[in-house]
């Protein structure tokens, strides 16, 4: 990490840091609560992938759109969602962002441009393409980002949507989080190519590879693509190489992953590396960083309290909002 200070303001560097800490601590707590049996359903943790969400969303304006995935807590936190209403949604309370109707995989806040995390792999990609079409038709200058994984990059919907976006020069950025696994299937077992970014050429737009564990590299790649989109020059595919610490879902022992592979990637842990850089660059002191960790920890505590105290929906509420 070098010479990045010239590109990003301290304010932006600090925003990215705080977002990563929020994601890290929210996820750690959610995992704990889930393992203790307090959260119904499934949890797909993004621990280890914080840099992609924080770096990418830092390049967006409030009214830009994102679609996210089943592993989307990081994306929506970085886009601006509050930890308390997110936690309430995980707890299936009526104060959750989706009134308890969606849960972890479907968190949405349309007022903040979050068109939903999506439980169908690649399901959000055509939707984001449509949002980008809408931006273009309404001449608003907004852009859309769609997050998806290496597994999703094999879905027909991805190919169709990317081609659509290309032929109509839509203002969209395709951000692929390649964490090397689609559930238990290693990348070289589910696709011939090593770099998902190479597929962009097949559609006719640029494909860039970024270090998904370096939020500044992610920011630089995504912001450049966002500007390109806003100028009307069409889509870009950015492949962020990263890794998730836990298995596909919380509770998955993930013994299909070699121990040394997990160890190697944990050694490139994004938050620790970033904080090391911030200290060296004089952006934040070690003291300040510790303080931020404490503040966020308290924020998570309050979020859990809020969720626990919040009312459950009434069973009949199931008949509303159809």
């Amino acid at each position, binding site marked *: 990490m070098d010479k990045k200070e010239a590109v990003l303001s301290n304010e932006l560097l600090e925003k990215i840091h705080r977002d990563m800490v929020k994601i890290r601590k929210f996820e750690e707590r959610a995992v704990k609560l889930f393992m203790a049996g307090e959260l119904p359903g499934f949890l797909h943790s993004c621990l280890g992938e914080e840099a992609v969400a924080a770096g990418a969303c830092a390049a967006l304006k409030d009214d830009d759109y994102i679609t996210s995935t089943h592993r989307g807590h990081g994306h929506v936190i970085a886009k601006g969602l509050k930890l308390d209403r997110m936690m309430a949604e995980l707890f299936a309370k009526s104060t959750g962002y*989706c009134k308890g109707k969606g849960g972890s995989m479907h968190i*949405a806040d349309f007022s903040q441009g979050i*068109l939903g995390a999506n439980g169908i792999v690649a399901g959000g*990609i055509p939707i984001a*393409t449509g949002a980008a079409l809408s931006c273009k038709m*309404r001449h608003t200058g907004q852009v859309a980002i769609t997050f998806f994984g290496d597994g999703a990059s094999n879905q*027909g*919907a991805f190919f169709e*949507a990317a*081609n659509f976006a290309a032929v109509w020069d839509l203002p969209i950025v395709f951000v692929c989080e390649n964490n090397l696994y689609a559930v238990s299937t290693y990348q070289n077992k589910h696709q011939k190519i090593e770099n998902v970014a190479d597929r962009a050429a097949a559609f006719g737009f640029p494909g860039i590879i970024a270090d998904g564990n370096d939020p500044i590299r992610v920011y630089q790649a995504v912001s450049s693509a966002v500007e390109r989109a806003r100028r009307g020059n069409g889509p870009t595919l950015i492949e962020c190489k990263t890794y998730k610490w836990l298995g596909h879902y919380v509770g998955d022992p993930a013994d299909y992953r070699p121990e040394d592979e997990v160890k190697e990637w944990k050694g490139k842990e994004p938050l620790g590396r970033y904080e090391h850089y911030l200290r060296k660059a004089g952006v934040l002191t070690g003291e300040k960083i510790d303080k931020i960790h404490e503040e966020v920890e308290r924020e998570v505590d309050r979020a859990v309290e809020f969720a626990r105290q919040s009312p459950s929906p009434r069973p009949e509420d199931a008949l509303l909002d159809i």
Partner: protein
Amino acid sequence: MREMSYKKAVSEALREEMLRDENVFCLGLDIGRFGGTYKATAGLWEEFGDERVRDTPLSEAAIAGASVGAAMTGMRPVAEIMYIDFATIAMDQIVNQAAKLKYMSGGQAKIPVVFRTQEGAGRASAAQHAQSLEAWFAHIPGLKVVLPSTPYDVKGLLKTAVRDDSPVVFIEHKLLYNTKGEVPEEEYLIPFGRAKICREGNDITIVALSRMAHRAVEAAEKLAEEGISAEIIDPRTVVPLDMETIINSVKKTGHLIVAHEAYTRCGIGAEICAQVMENAFYFLEKPVRRVGGLNVPVPFAPIMEDYVIPNTLNIIEAAKELLDLR
């Protein structure tokens, strides 16, 4: 009153809605200069151009999905799926996304999308181009399902569909496009959930969908020559379904036939019959009866296609059997 073809009624409805609201736009395969496979969008591209009448790549999942995304962010897309048989490629976006995102987001999303398509047999188009799949969509909470049978109905219902803020699956019929009927000059809308009594009668109720409504009316005319008075009901919308009109009719006649081209097994006929059994059992003099497509893929050869798809004669025979008059 002026006469107009069903296909012209479609394009006129779209034209009026596009003039009324600049956020309404059309997308689909060959709907622009080509005017659509059945010419139902003829003239629109000439008037509104590439921007609002968009020819798309061959990608039903993206057509449907982009329509959902555009609808969620301020536009009002009318997406054409050329044949209902191709909806299979778009099913995730229609069933898992369009139908559910409002609910799953706790009511946040507004998704004013119309998926326009056409169904039906009778053109020797064979199994993958001749199905009637309204039952699939009717099964999914979150979708409205419309099957207009006349030019008057298709225009009034399509305008309602475009103005509806929730997803609508709007199913035209390929053999109805060139049929003609009276369509007023003045603007009118037909609300959903309002069945049409095509012909009043006292002896037997025949509920018929889409093109079968015409065959049912023909059957009623033939039955009348033999002194049988049949009441023909066209539901027009399967979701929401006007069961009140159907049940009132059954209370009067005591006999029910439901006719549709769709495969009989698990078709809309099953739903209507079940509801009549639940709500008007004691008014029935005979068991309910369905006249539907045979449970086989639609064959190519016209002689076989005519055999598997129900026709006027099938309805007449079923009515006479039900009334013990064979």
